């Protein structure tokens, strides 16, 4: 009685007896080892296997016996006989003893990683196993390392690999011993239901799962990459189109806008466009490749993309810096941006009304006038009118060309008056004033703020909507204060302070006035103490 096994040679199945298999495996492994460093090794080996299969096929389906294998291998010849006519390059590859790390399927408990390491390091495998178990207690480190090594290390399947794993010279004798061992092992595995089958079952299961999941993951990834890259390409294209045909004048101001037309600008936009969009297109093609399971990126189109991209990058670098320099120059010398001072005499008035976030300073002078310091553009934005004894400072309704990137300083407005009795601020405007007057009425609304210095006999102060009044240096005899909505006022009153404070407002005063202020809703009135300094 003889045991047989089934082998596949050149995609043909043969039944072969055990001793015949051992001889054949040894023979093929020797050839494989011999040609291991030959550049054409795959082809030579498969041709030789094909020829052996042809010889076997001549046996018309008979079981392959040792005698058949011996006659075939002697017809094929041994490696020594091959050398009669092989090229010189292969003759040195005979006795290379190399050692590689493999997983050992024969002595494994899970996947043979520990055995493989032990073979590689030349230590007892039990030591490695104990180390793995210990390392499990360091946050499962051992498990992670084990799985990674499982994935990256091949299993020693063939006799030659077994020998490489053990670091033994690949000789015929050594190999036939390995093959005999493996037959015993095979036998043993059939009978025993050891932990090994658990490991290999997991491995097979994982391979199955992986082969099922990987295409799905690739398809999903391909979809998202394709979709994302399409969206990105579309967005970039829309921006490029806008930049070309509806250039953003307000970013650069009307003067520089003249540069945002024409040949040079078009080149800049196109160069920037291509240097951004080409990588996106390459990513897109990669996504499509994943979806189609076939690469649409070949050497030629990658090379084409790379060259266009390179040209675009260089062009973008040169033209963009040139244009940016020109635009910068234009913006600096834009007449609408250059700072200038304009003084305009005004008719007489008695009250000042400031709105639309303007900041004014009021000073005492002989004639009524207004002085602007700032860019023409900013000055043109301000609308000044005198009507019914009132000076109104507001914003011009006609829209001006904007320039977000222009270098600008804040516009200053100085109003000169012989006298004034009423100042009203709205829309977060601000006032700075220094003068001596008999009576002054100040009304602050919408987070406006005022800093006054000088003196007055009577001050009528109304604050609304988180407005802020600092009269610490403004000496008044009589003050009437009406303050609400989280506003606050600092006053210097000498004779009498009356009024009302509503809704979290606060009045702080210095001096020694007679105080009669009604406080409502957590408002407060208090005298400034030495340690309390009032800050703006």
């Amino acid at each position: 009685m003889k045991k047989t096994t089934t082998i596949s040679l050149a995609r043909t199945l043969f039944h072969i007896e055990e001793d015949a298999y051992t001889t054949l495996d040894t023979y093929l492994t020797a050839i494989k080892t011999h040609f291991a460093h030959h550049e054409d090794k795959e082809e030579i080996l498969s041709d030789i296997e094909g020829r052996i299969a042809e010889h076997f096929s001549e046996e018309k389906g008979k079981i392959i016996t040792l005698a058949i294998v011996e006659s075939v291998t002697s017809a094929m010849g041994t490696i020594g006989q091959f050398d009669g006519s092989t090229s010189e390059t292969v003759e040195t590859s005979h006795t290379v003893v190399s050692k590689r790390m493999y997983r050992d399927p024969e002595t494994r408990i899970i996947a043979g990683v520990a055995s493989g390491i032990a073979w590689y390091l030349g230590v007892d495998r039990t030591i490695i196993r104990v180390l793995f178990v210990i390392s499990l207690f360091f946050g499962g480190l051992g498990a992670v390392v084990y799985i990674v090594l499982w994935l990256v290390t091949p299993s020693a399947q063939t006799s030659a690999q077994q020998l490489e794993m053990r670091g033994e010279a690949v000789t015929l004798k050594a190999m036939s011993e390995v093959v005999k061992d493996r037959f015993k092992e095979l036998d043993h595995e059939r009978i025993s239901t050891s932990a090994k089958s658990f490991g290999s079952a997991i491995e097979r299961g994982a391979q199955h799962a992986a082969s099922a999941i990987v295409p799905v993951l690739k398809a999903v990834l391909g979809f998202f990459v394709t979709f994302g890259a399409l969206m990105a390409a579309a967005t970039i294209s829309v921006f490029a189109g806008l930049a070309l045909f509806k250039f953003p004048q307000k970013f650069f101001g009307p003067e520089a806008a003249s540069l945002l037309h024409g040949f040079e600008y078009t080149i800049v936009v196109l160069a920037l466009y291509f240097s951004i969009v080409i990588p996106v297109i390459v990513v897109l093609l990669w996504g499509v490749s994943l979806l189609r399971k076939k690469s649409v990126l070949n050497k030629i189109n990658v090379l084409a993309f790379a060259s266009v991209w390179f040209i675009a990058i260089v062009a973008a670098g040169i033209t963009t810096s040139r244009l940016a320099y020109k635009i910068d120059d234009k913006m600096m010398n834009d007449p609408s941006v250059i700072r200038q001072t304009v003084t305009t005499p005004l008719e007489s008035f008695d009250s000042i009304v400031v709105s639309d976030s303007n900041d004014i300073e009021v000073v005492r002078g002989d004639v009524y006038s207004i002085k602007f310091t700032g860019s023409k553009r900013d000055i043109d934005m301000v609308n000044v009118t005198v009507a019914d004894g009132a000076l109104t400072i507001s914003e011009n309704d006609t829209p001006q060309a904007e320039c977000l990137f222009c270098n600008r300083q804040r516009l200053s407005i100085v109003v000169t008056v012989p006298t004034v009795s009423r100042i009203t601020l709205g829309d977060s405007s601000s006032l700075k004033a220094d003068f001596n007057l008999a009576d002054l009425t100040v009304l602050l609304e919408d987070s406006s703020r005022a800093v006054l210095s000088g003196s007055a006999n009577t001050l009528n102060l109304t604050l609304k909507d988180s407005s802020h009044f600092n009269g610490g240096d403004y000496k008044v005899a009589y003050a009437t204060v009406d303050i609400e909505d989280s506003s606050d006022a600092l006053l210097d009153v000498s004779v009498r302070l009356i009024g009302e404070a509503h809704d979290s407002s606060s009045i702080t005063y210095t001096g020694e006035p007679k105080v009669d202020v009604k406080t409502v809703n957590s408002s407060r009135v208090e005298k400034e103490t030495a340690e309390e300094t009032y800050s703006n």
Partner: protein
Amino acid sequence: MVTMEKEKEDVALAHAQMRKGMLEFCTLLIIEKDTAYVSDILKELKVADLIVVEGTLYPLLSRLKTEGLLEYSWQESPSGPPRKYYSLTDHGKKQLAQLKTIWKTLTTSINSLIKKD
């Protein structure tokens, strides 16, 4: 004194050397006649007693292919897996023509050497 054994061995060695030198030339000649697959080539070489073991041919074919003298195409076989049919490239044909010239010169001179005996 040279023993019979040693004499036989030396002759066999010289024969092997000659075969070795001829093998490439003859293989090209066989393929030149008609495209051939390995079995055909081996059969002819065996008939001519130019090859002892079949394994010798594979590295040779691989080398000739790498040198650009041969190319092959796959063809279905009536029985078994598809076969590689080898043919000469243009480069191979040119080289073979040169080898033939050399061979003619060689045989002429060898024959004249033999006749002198």
